[in-house]
């Protein structure tokens, strides 16, 4: 790992929610300028990890360093400054429903830069062009398909030319063509703009096809970390079960339960 330059360093992180352990003492590294895929079964708190990185949630112990800075010890103003260097693509797109596509993309620039209206318009057209939706600039979010909404959200996430873009389940609920488009876009953005990308997903094929670095989470632990090839070659039964989608294996099918005898009244 030391060969890679870390952009985000998660150190001994623990997080509990309502008495349930989400993470217990996990450590992982997100290398600079690369695409890192964080994978794991549903319900392992992958989205929670992104929210912890963005400091929307506070960990119960441990720390997250972004560029060497502990995000959870920053003041509100400093935190907002750090967040300006982050873009996040939410699972639902999270476009502002009362603004048009162009206004959505322009919003972060209007809020954080002193660019003139015409400059913002030019950048908006540029960003929308890069996701192939310049023609949709005047539509409202309710008029977009799911795949288009996600692409608009992507254009908005990169509006301020962030250093870090986080993708929350970008492929879920997308048809194969949209998936392909998104895979290509994520790769392109990462390489041309020198962005560090973090991708949270349980779509094994898409994720492994673009990720430079992969972490697999299960049961509150990191069960594997390495390059896509290393992960594919892994002999760990848990990793194999996840990658191949086998119903039987170390990851249980049943939610933790009482012994049946305790529930059946005889």
């Amino acid at each position, binding site marked *: 790992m030391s060969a890679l330059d870390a952009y985000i360093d998660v150190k001994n992180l623990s997080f509990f929610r309502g008495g349930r352990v989400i993470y217990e003492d996990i450590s992982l590294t997100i290398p600079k300028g690369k695409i890192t895929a964080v994978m794991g079964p549903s319900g392992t708190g992958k989205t929670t990890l992104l*929210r912890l990185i*963005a400091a*929307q949630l506070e960990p119960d112990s441990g720390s997250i360093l972004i560029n060497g800075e502990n995000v959870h010890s920053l003041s509100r103003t400093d935190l*907002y*400054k750090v*967040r*300006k260097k*982050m*873009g*996040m693509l*939410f*699972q*639902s797109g*999270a*476009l*502002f*429903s009362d603004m048009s596509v162009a206004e959505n993309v322009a*919003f*972060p620039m*209007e*809020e*954080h830069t002193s660019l003139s209206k015409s400059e913002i318009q030019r950048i908006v057209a540029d960003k929308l062009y890069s996701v192939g939706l310049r023609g949709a600039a005047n539509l409202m979010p309710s008029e977009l398909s799911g795949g288009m909404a996600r692409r608009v959200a992507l254009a908005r996430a990169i509006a301020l030319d962030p250093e870090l873009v986080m993708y929350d389940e970008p492929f879920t609920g997308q048809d194969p063509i949209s998936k392909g488009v998104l895979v290509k876009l994520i790769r392109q953005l990462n390489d041309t703009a020198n962005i560090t990308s973090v991708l949270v997903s349980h779509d094994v094929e898409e994720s492994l096809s673009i990720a430079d670095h992969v972490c697999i989470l299960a049961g509150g632990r990191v069960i594997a970390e390495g390059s896509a090839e290393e992960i594919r070659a892994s002999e760990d039964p848990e990793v194999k079960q996840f990658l191949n989608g086998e119903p039987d294996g170390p990851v249980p099918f049943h939610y933790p339960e009482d012994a049946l005898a305790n529930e059946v009244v005889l």
Partner: protein
Amino acid sequence: MKTVASLGAWFLSWLEAVGRAGIFLAQSVFRLPVRFNESVNLLIKQLYSVGVLSLVIVVVSGAFIGMVLALQGYSILAKFGSEEAVGQLLALALLRELAPVVTALLFAGRAGSSLTAEIGLMKATEQLSSFEMMGVDPLRRVIAPRFIAGVICLPLLSLIFSATGIIGGLVVSVGWLGVHDGAFWSLMQQSVYFDADIVNGFIKALCFSVAVTWIAVYQGYECVPTSEGIGKATTRTVVLGSLAILALDFVLTAAMFGDF
């Protein structure tokens, strides 16, 4: 012993919720806007959707309540031969009591519920998180304009309610029942005092507007972001809002008109 303990626990959790709501309100209102022009635009948009769109329901119910009041008042006052006093009755009942309370109840149902649902849905679709991720404070951007718009609108709506109520009552009593219009107006003018009646009614409406809008935006912001959670939060806004209005009304009436 157990009941006492659970009562105490309930009270503590209630106190905690009130405290949280207080901090929430302070943070959303007293944090200064970054860009003045934009804040004004946001506020105007909310004034429209919270205030202007509530006008129809307020005007229609105001007119009907004034009409009913005139009918009822006339039938009793006529027994004493003092049907001209219906103007006085209308004006005092509306300004002191009915306009602030009924407008606030209508406002809780019409504007309060829609504020809660809108904010709740923004939370469910991650729009609030999205503001936060962009380094924009959702309290300042989403909550503050809605709260301020609500506080401004309700007292004005209450005045409009009074006016349409009096016009409705005028139509029924003077136009239909044949009350002398000069007596109707002069008795009203004689008995209504600006500071005691109009200002006090306005203050009542102002207090209700703070309570109702506060409850509405807080319930939306704190709701469980699922369809069930939003539904429950919307119901809570209307129920808690209405109860708060009626309880506050008693306290305010006692303080304003209680010294005999």
